[in-house]
């Protein structure tokens, strides 16, 4: 207010007015408040211009920050307005149904015999595969470091089997929270940019032969051996994913022939 030229920004009464005009632009006024204000704007051109400016700011900001589209095929927009999703999430029902309709479970429903880690592996695949953060191949030295780090965090030795025979190179690994302790996720990529992930987490409950989880276009083959659960996730091609999983399972000390198909 020491600055006579810039009177609009800071004077309290202008601040109040700006709040009112903002509330109009943001749809936060009741029907009555809105009607009164619109009446006023009909002859208060200065205020009308401000409202118009706020609207233009909004349009420009939305244009500046479009919704990122990568991985868009995986992301399903719920049909319910998002303000109602709080309730939906609380009931655990409505959003689940909306998603269920869009991403039908083709395998057994969740909780019907699959270990949680297979689900988590599938979701972790969906979450991280679109990221383009680590596009370079992990060097041998980095790989050793990565394996040591992940083994320490999982408190068991973990290994990333080579999948070069199938054209996939290891491009990175990350630590994720799992339901029975931390989980490691290795990411592989082929020349075409297709990605596979191998998810590894403690699973002391029992030994599991190779099994398949289908979720939308994603496939996960999972098994458990020597206290660790493994899940190999990738896009559609089931036969190929199974073949890779068999090799990975054998390379990791399991016995894939126990799998009957």
């Amino acid at each position, binding site marked *: 207010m020491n600055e006579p030229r810039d009177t609009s920004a800071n004077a309290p009464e202008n601040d109040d007015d700006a709040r009112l005009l*903002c509330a109009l632009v943001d749809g936060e006024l009741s029907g009555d408040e809105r009607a009164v204000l619109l009446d006023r704007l009909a002859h208060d051109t200065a205020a009308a211009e401000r409202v118009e400016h706020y609207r233009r700011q909004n349009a420009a900001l939305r244009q500046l920050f479009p919704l990122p589209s990568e991985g868009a095929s995986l992301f399903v927009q719920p049909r319910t307005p998002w303000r109602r999703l709080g309730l939906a999430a609380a009931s655990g029902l409505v959003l689940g149904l909306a998603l269920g309709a869009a991403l039908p479970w083709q395998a057994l429903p969740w909780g019907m015999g699959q270990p949680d880690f297979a689900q988590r592996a599938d979701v972790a695949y969906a979450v991280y595969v679109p990221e383009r953060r680590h596009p370079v191949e992990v060097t041998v030295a980095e790989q050793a470091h990565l394996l040591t780090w992940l083994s320490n965090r999982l408190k068991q030795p973990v290994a990333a089997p080579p999948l070069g025979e199938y054209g996939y190179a290891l491009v990175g690994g990350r630590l994720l929270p799992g339901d029975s302790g931390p989980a490691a996720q290795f990411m592989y990529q082929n020349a075409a940019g297709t990605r596979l992930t191998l998810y590894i987490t403690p699973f002391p409950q029992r030994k599991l032969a190779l099994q398949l989880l289908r979720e939308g276009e994603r496939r996960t083959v999972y098994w458990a051996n020597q206290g660790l659960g493994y899940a190999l996730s990738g896009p559609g091609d089931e036969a190929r994913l199974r073949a890779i999983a068999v090799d990975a399972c054998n390379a990791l000390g399991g016995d894939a022939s126990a799998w009957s198909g």
Partner: protein
Amino acid sequence: MSFESDLLVWLPHLRRYARALTRDQAWADDLVQDTLERALSKWHWGRSGNLRAWLLTLLRHRFIDQLRARREIAVDDETAPWQHLPAPSNEVDGLLLRDVERALYRLPLEQREVLLLVAVEELSYQDAAKVLQVPVGTVMSRLARGRERMRALLAGPVAGDATSTRAPLKVVKHTP
């Protein structure tokens, strides 16, 4: 029904908000990744409330923490990530996007973040208040001041005039 699949729905929104906050793709990716890891580890069934607001809150907390770690980044600091952007050259409704972007990153952080939540993420005032952990009245004042400031900046003769807004990013303590 899995919480994780609900999470996927909001992933693009988290990415967008992180990019707008940081204006730095790598930083934004890190923020989103941290947020997801935190969300996956903190979630427990029976938790009620608005998932999106909760995720945005987590993301914002990570951002504030990381800002603290980077300490003293001023809005017009030469090294701030948003100083080195390829400027968009198109125009929307008579406003040059380049100018709008520049004005946005000249706002104090607390005005910028509320503007992003309301104008871009289209949150209600109440949900924005939840994310920012301030009263609704504070959301309204910051928003009003932010928009007025944007208007003044966009009307100004030289948007690049450095003397006008050398305000450091203020990291505000969250008070309930």
